């Protein structure tokens, strides 16, 4: 880091749990953010402001007026732009040191594998189960930590999966197996409370930064449930499913 970076990140460096070594890890790190919407917006803003060296934004949508109520990466003057391009503009404005790469389409398994293989941490900020399962498969295959968030109406969920661990930690599919029959409720029709996306997306940024910097504890095998109407959190523990179609030893080729 140069003098300006040491100054810019000084309030992180002052934290013993991060320090110069942790901040250097952030500057050297590559984060992959799937979805540049309600969750991806705060997550990307915090990762960029905190100095994560390379951020890849993946999203196939364009900025729509109805997004602006909660998707704080975007703005009125960028309506109609791709979300990844709008996001790139926002992140560059905050921190020009960060290299922002853009993938302006929804990703399927094959391109996802290359993107995940190249990342140090993956943030799932997507809005559909097919993508969530594809991201999980790629993270298990390439042994990358995955910070998964979800928010709809007044309800949020957050979990961290880390298949780098040798102790058989669970994956997303252990928690919610891909059955094809889950009720898929989308923000587009169901609504979402604006700051709920901020709360969950910001927690994803926190866990991703901790993972990269090596700060504090990363709790795997635990799902946080937020009831935003009562503003109450519950967490539940879950283990690896020995029959998991994605991460059980028999499933990994």
């Amino acid at each position, binding site marked *: 880091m140069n003098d300006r970076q040491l100054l810019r990140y000084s309030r992180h460096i002052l934290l013993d749990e991060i320090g110069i070594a942790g901040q250097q890890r952030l500057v050297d790190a590559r984060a992959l953010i799937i*979805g540049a*919407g*309600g*969750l*991806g917006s705060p997550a990307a803003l915090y990762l960029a402001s905190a100095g994560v060296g390379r951020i890849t934004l993946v999203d196939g949508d364009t900025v729509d007026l109805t997004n602006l109520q909660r998707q704080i990466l975007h703005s009125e003057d960028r309506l109609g732009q791709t979300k990844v391009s709008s996001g790139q503009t926002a992140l560059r404005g905050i921190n020009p040191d960060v290299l922002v790469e853009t993938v302006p389409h929804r990703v399927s398994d094959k391109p996802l594998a290359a993107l995940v293989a190249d990342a140090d941490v993956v943030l*799932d*900020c*997507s*809005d*559909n*189960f097919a993508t*969530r399962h594809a991201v999980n498969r790629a993270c298990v295959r390439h042994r990358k930590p995955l910070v998964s*968030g*979800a*928010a*709809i*109406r007044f*309800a*949020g*969920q957050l979990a961290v999966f880390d298949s780098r661990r040798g102790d058989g930690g669970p994956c997303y599919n252990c*928690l*919610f*197996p891909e*059955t094809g*029959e*889950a*009720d*898929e*409720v*989308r*923000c587009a029709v*169901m609504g*979402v409370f604006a700051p709920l*996306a901020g709360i969950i997306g910001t927690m994803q940024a926190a866990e991703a930064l901790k993972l990269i910097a090596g700060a504090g504890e990363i709790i795997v095998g635990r*799902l946080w*449930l937020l*009831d935003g*109407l*009562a503003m*109450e959190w*519950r*967490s*539940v*523990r*879950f*283990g690896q499913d020995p029959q998991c179609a994605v991460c059980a030893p028999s499933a990994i080729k």
Partner: protein
Amino acid sequence: MLTILYFASVRERVGRAAEELALPAGVADVAGLLRHLGERGGAWEGLARIGNLRCAVNQQMVALDSPIADGDELAFFPPVTGG
């Protein structure tokens, strides 16, 4: 007594976040409790059919055939997407 918590679309479906309930006679596991709740009719009937419905007993996720006992806290939650 059982403490039962409902999250996300489950909460919206049944119209409440939590309730206390005396362990019903003849109910020994999570699936039995879901059947008992379904007898309330209306929105409760479809509870057991929510895709990928998950249950935690005393903050530990369990299978629906897991036993329950007086004093347990149960939480029902679905997978949530939306980003």
